[in-house]
């Protein structure tokens, strides 16, 4: 199915957020996630269902003021 990951169109086969992170190459990286604007905690990712067209945001620590 086609989804958006960090604003880029991706075609993924997995249905759950945790599996999609693995499929997209995030492995065990230290990241936080949101789907369609709502936070998805790390312990929810394994069972969190993703649907076609969903917008997935994957973030990591960065510099800030």
């Amino acid at each position, binding site marked *: 199915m086609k989804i958006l990951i960090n604003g880029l169109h991706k075609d993924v086969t997995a249905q759950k957020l945790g599996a999609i992170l693995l499929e997209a190459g*995030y492995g065990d990286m230290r990241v936080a996630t949101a789907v369609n604007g709502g*936070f998805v905690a790390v312990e929810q990712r394994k069972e969190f269902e993703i649907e076609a067209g969903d917008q997935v945001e994957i973030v*990591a620590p*960065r*510099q800030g*003021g």
Partner: protein
Amino acid sequence: MLGTSQYPSPAILAEAFRKSAASVATVSVRREAAGAHAGEGFWSLVRDLGVLVLPNTAGCYSASEAITTAKMARELFETDWIKLEVIGHSDSLQPDPFGLVDAAAKLCRDGFKVFPYTTEDLVLADRLLDVGCEVLMPWGSPIGTGLGLLNPYGLRSLRAHYPDVPMVIDAGIGLPSQATQAMEMGFDAILLNTAVAKAGDPVLMATAFSRAIEAGKLARDADPMEPRDMAMPSTPVIGKAFLQ
């Protein structure tokens, strides 16, 4: 408090922190590419600074966006502290007071310790304290301008109305003298970033700010004299020789 953005290099960032004597580092969350590991490298650098971490919601223009960002930051940085920014105007980067109070209320209820980026507005301060904020972070002037304290009257008024609320001047400080002025007014801390990071010599500027902030605090603690309009000789008049 010192921001971690815009330094010429990670090594200069680290050295500026050491010279600044800052005890808090502000950080953010941003999109990560698969396999990039940029976030892990940065997080390792920040941990090595040995300071407290204050994540921000910089760039958020709505309460919902800021709340989601805060939750992502809490998970990544393992802290309930959040520097809450809900921007209301893209040119001045001034906060959206309505979105700010809305987001602050929800985050406080969710267990966050909210450090709201606000203005010197007393009514807004009152609302933020009402919804559970225990710290206020009024701006000196718009973010990144370096214009210093544009409304000293308003800031003095804010300080006087809430003498027991910890307050940090956040944004707009460009020179050490401006930081001294804020500390002399009775503010508890200064959050700096651009003034240090974009100086020609960030490490030297961090040293200058450290001394300026300490000077301002010492001056405040020393209970300064009251200014007066009339001149008054400091040398005793009595005992002056009569020479006519």
